[in-house]
């Protein structure tokens, strides 16, 4: 344990591996928690999960065909996000079954293609994430995309609130809910793809959903939920990262577990304060 700590702060490791991972990770964590607030409140929690499986399929196909993974996965996942949000709105086929159908199909295609081609190593990175193996260009890209997400969220904050809270009223006051849903689909897709490179496609939906649920245990206002979710997700990320380095555990899974611990603590605090008031 002490040795791990020592290695962690050697300049080579810290500068070349840990620092980029921390920067990229925090950027993606903020995005996923912000978007998560709307996804959870609009009852689209499973979309993140579905998209990550679709992204996994796309990345596997890209790896087999020797194409740049992000260039293939991003457009595919953006298109999938459009389709899934649309399906959830006018639901002939109900949203959650559509997601299940899409994501299992994409996942199976990914597994078939990669097992046939004999590439399993690269692809398993996408299943479980490889935050310490993020290349410099990956980190730069995730910081830029995250910045776009965060700025868009800030500028559209009030509209996002209105569309999330009551879409029919938002439409009546002239807010073009369709456009916001589309912007939202794109931002979600970007975040999911970045998140799955880091956390793995199995864990990204936890990153999206858990901070919001945690914040909702104690916060009354939308603003409070947004801010708390952001803070909790950053804290979970940092704690999870350092625990994984110290105890040699998988980073993605460690971060998720820290998130869950936060959730349990906040649930407890929420219950206690409710009892006290009544």
């Amino acid at each position, binding site marked *: 344990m002490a040795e791990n700590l020592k290695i962690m702060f050697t300049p080579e490791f810290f500068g070349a591996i840990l620092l980029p991972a921390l920067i990229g990770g925090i950027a993606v964590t903020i995005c996923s928690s912000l978007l998560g607030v709307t996804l959870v409140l609009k009852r689209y929690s499973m979309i993140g999960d579905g998209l990550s499986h679709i992204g996994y399929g796309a990345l596997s196909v890209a790896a087999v065909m020797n194409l740049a993974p992000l260039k293939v996965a991003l457009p595919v996942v953006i298109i999938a996000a459009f389709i899934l949000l649309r399906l959830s709105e006018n639901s002939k086929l109900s949203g959650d079954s559509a997601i299940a159908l899409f994501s299992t199909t994409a996942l199976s295609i990914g597994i078939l293609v990669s097992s046939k081609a004999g590439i399993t190593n690269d692809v398993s990175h996408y299943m479980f994430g490889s935050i310490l193996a993020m290349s410099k260009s990956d980190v730069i890209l995730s910081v830029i995309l995250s910045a776009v997400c965060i700025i868009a969220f800030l500028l559209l904050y009030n509209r996002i609130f209105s569309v999330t809270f009551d879409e029919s*009223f938002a439409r009546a*006051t002239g807010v073009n809910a369709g456009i916001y849903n589309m912007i939202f689909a794109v931002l979600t897709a970007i975040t999911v793809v970045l998140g799955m490179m880091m956390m793995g496609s199995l864990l990204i939906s936890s990153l999206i959903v858990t901070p919001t649920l945690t914040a*909702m245990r104690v916060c009354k206002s939308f603003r409070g939920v947004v801010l708390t979710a952001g803070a909790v997700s950053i804290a979970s990320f940092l704690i999870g990262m350092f625990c994984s380095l110290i105890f040699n555990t998988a980073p993605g899974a460690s971060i998720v577990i820290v998130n869950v611990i936060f959730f349990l603590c906040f649930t407890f605090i929420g219950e206690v304060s409710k009892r006290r008031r009544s």
Partner: protein
Amino acid sequence: MKKILECDKLTASYDGANVLTGLSFAINEGDYLCILGENGSGKSTLVKCLLGIKSPDSGKIVLSDGLKQTDIGYLPQHTSFANGFPATVAEVVISGCLGRRGFLPFYSSKEKKKAQNAMERLGIADLANRSCRELSGGQQQRMLLARAMCAAKKLLLLDEPVTGLDPSAAAEMYSLIDELNHKDKMTIIMVTHDVVKALDCSNRILCLCSSDHSFFGTPGEYANSHISSKFIGD
């Protein structure tokens, strides 16, 4: 009396079937119009046309005095917000100002004042920082009415505002609406199933009876017409 809204030979369909055919009526500033009709008679379609969410197949809706469709304060029928939604009353009420925001991202102090006034007007100013999930049904409706007032310039469109309220909360809601009509000179359009109340408080009745037959006139005329007997009995 100045005309505020005119519906001219409006025809609209829902799921391929015509629900409104050649509907014409006009209301003046300060009017209190109740829209009656059975389920499926086209009330919701008419509401969507009035709000500009849906465009009619033919005919038109004319608003006067530079009033835009987004200036209509709207109280939706079943509020679609989930019960566990974390938002304070103040956050919800001020979101009514959004329509006139244009592309500016944040609310001005004038709009914050407007939201504050609306809450005081409806007696929910002390609930401003409470979470909307802790409110009773009547308080929730008042919150949504305050939001509608933020969006409204002169015209409020209320879609079954007392559904699900207990009798005393419903009476309170009705008297608030009356007050807005009398004191604040708000023009009211209310969709309702409560014929007795409609006859009592409104000065115009629009009854959508079937897709090509409708009644428009004063409550007195309505009570004497044969259409009303179906709703209020002989």
